[in-house]
């Protein structure tokens, strides 16, 4: 009851009598995903929205679901799990998709 009286007071203060419907609360829902051209990491064959294979195996031991497995984009605009790519470049410093020399353009956060 006290709540409603308070609401009423507030409504009276910002009176907009011409409005039949007024917004009280909006719960807006959005989904985020990595801004990538290809959904799948070409190195581990797992979707980039999921943790890479190595992280999935490890996260079973720790508290799962922790999204530390981010995405990395090369200058060539190809994208991979950062974990997967950092292992890849130790063997071969080229992008696995286009064979250009690998250099990081940006990291996901």
């Amino acid at each position, binding site marked *: 009851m006290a709540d409603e009286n308070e609401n009423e007071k507030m409504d009276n203060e910002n009176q907009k009598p011409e409005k039949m419907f007024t*917004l*009280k609360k909006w719960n807006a829902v959005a*989904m*985020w*995903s990595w801004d990538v051209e290809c959904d799948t990491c070409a190195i581990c064959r797992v979707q980039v*929205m999921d943790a890479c294979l190595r992280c999935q195996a490890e996260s079973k031991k720790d508290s799962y*679901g922790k999204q530390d497995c981010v995405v990395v984009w090369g200058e060539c605009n190809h994208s991979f799990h950062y974990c997967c790519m950092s292992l890849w470049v130790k063997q071969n410093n080229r992008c696995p998709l286009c064979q250009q020399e690998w250099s990081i353009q940006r990291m*996901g956060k």
Partner: protein
Amino acid sequence: MFQEKGQLKFEDKWVHMRPIVLKLLKQEPVSPAEWQELFYDVHLVCLWDEKGPGKLRDHLHEDIVQFIKQAQNRVLAQRQEEALLKAYIAEWRKFFTQCNYLPTPFRQLESSLQGKTTSAGTSMQSNNNKKGASDESIVRKLMLDSWNESIFSDIKHRLQESAMKLVHAERNGEAFDSQLVIGVRESYVNLCSNSEDRLEIYRENFEAAYIQSTEMFYRMKAPEHLANNGVLAYMRYADAKLREEEARAQRYLEAGSNGVIQCCVKVLVGNPLSVLLAECAALIKDGETERLQLMFRLLERVPEGVQPMLKELENHITQAGLADMIAAADIITQDSEKYVERLLELFRKFSKLVHDAFSDDPRFLTARDKAFKSVVNDTTVFRLELGTGRSIAGKVVTPESKCPELLANFCDMLLRRTPLSKRLTSEEIESRLRDVLLVLKYVSNKDVFMRYHKAHLTRRLILDASADSEKEEDMVEWLREVGMPADYVNKLARMFQDIKVSEDLNAQFRTSTERHDAINIKILNAGAWARGSERVTVSLPVELEDYIPEVEDFYKKKHSGRKLQWYHHMSNGTITFSTNSGKFDLDVTTFQMAVLFAWNQRTHDKITYENLRLATELPDGELRRTLWSLVAFPKLKRQLLLFCGIASAPKDFDEHTVFWVNQEFALIKNGKTQKRGKVNLVGRLQLSTERSQIEDNQSIVQLRILRTQEAIIKILKMRKRISNAALQTELVDILKNMFLPSKKMIKEQLEWLIENKYMRRDEDDINTFIYMA
């Protein structure tokens, strides 16, 4: 002592020995001097007369046989059964006692006959060692064999007959001295000189006669009793008789003589088996636990006796369960709580039956579980059409039980803030969730449950509608415990994790600026929540539209490399509706908001369907559904919007249908109009569009195909070659926590894998598959 060998003759000594031997046989007193003398004479005969030992044995034998003949005459003089047995047993016991004494002085003879010359010293030793030696004593064997050959062979039939007559009399309730039968049996056992098989004579004569007479007795009595008293009384009779015969066998037979009980079981249970079994179904139906216990006890004794009982139990539970479901179909198809309660009531009832009647015997528990599975997965009462009637990839999909969907709905009612969950205590909710898991155990297609449960959880988390967030997470762990696939459970856990991340973000957003007390944001990981789901476009009212760029700017500052997609079909809120007479808070979806806000500039206007479509830009289907929820919300007596024309479903609106706001809107409580109040118009929050729902159904089927292929390959990789039957069994085992693959689907996938060279059929045996790497 120092006479030369050959000077002492057996004949000279035997004259002195014989009277003592005869005294011993007759159990007449023998003085210690005579006893000593006998020892010494035997020693001398064996030492000095080369032919002495043989002669001694022959003469001894003759006297023993002679003595036995006299005993036989004394026994056979008895005409009457009991007297005969008594006389025989008395003679036998006397003789058997002497079997232990008479051989002792002849120890030396034993050694001589075995070809050993022994000194007095060792003979003394063997005296001290009487007991061990007497076991192999030749004289003793001579005595027993003589008894066996003369008296026993002649009268054993009379003995047995007499003993069995007494047992027969006892079966008919007459009392007698059981020692007589026991005595006869003992003579059969002790008589045996075969050290390899001491029970040989007993078994071949006494036990065989005992079994034969027992069988004759019950072959007569059992059918008579059955005919005169009926099956139920007969079962009690048979049970009592079996126990009685077990006790009797313990008295009259040697331990380990099981033949007679096997024979009784055959006659008392095996022969009338079909008559007994014919009663089983009725007993189960009437819940006659005591009689079922009795029947189980009896039938368990015969091979293949329990199997038909198991079948009867399974049939009964299945039929009674289905009949119950069909009788209550009207209620349970509408109300998932009632459905689960009804099922559990059935489970409890039949579990109690199995417990009370069959002591939770594992075989009966298995039969019960099989029946529960049939009830739970039956499609007569309600069916779930996967693929919504459309054939998938040209294949018609078989209907499935709706049970998993109803279970998921019931879970939702318990975990969401609902009248039900408010009424129950935390413990009660937990016990009902455990009940759901119990039923889920019997569901073949758990993947359907998973899909609905995940959808419900998504709604609860997005609408902040969970009754108890701790219980939500408990439930995820319980699902893991009952063996739901790990990747599925992990996905649920990931949603909880993600919603917490999103709550933190919302708190940061709300503190970042003071203006935003009317907005909450949930920005979720698309991988965890909405993989591949389709979005619906809507033109937001300006009040909402204003927020969008600010949220996006905020998010860009927090994160990089991410793109945002608004899921307005999931978002929702509360609006205040002011009429001339009152003020109401409405919980609405964003689509409902978009429609209602169209009237803000033209409060009293009538707006056509077409113009609302232009204003909201909602797709046709969504707009129809949204309007329908505002003109015909089930819980409201006075609806929010009014329209002209007749429509009984959303599809009945046409582009000229006009809608206007009901200025007389009010909430009615207990028949009174309320000027204020709150109402929730969200209903079941839509998670996906109609089209993606069909895709969802298809994806279940596609996923099953994929899982089946994976499992087949996994098995073949391990086994290299495997028969069709073995493959099917292993396949069902691997997939059982997700779904029950149909024979047809397995066959199709096998064909596909063969066609695509993952495997091949054996050239010699088309029912064997071989893995191709």
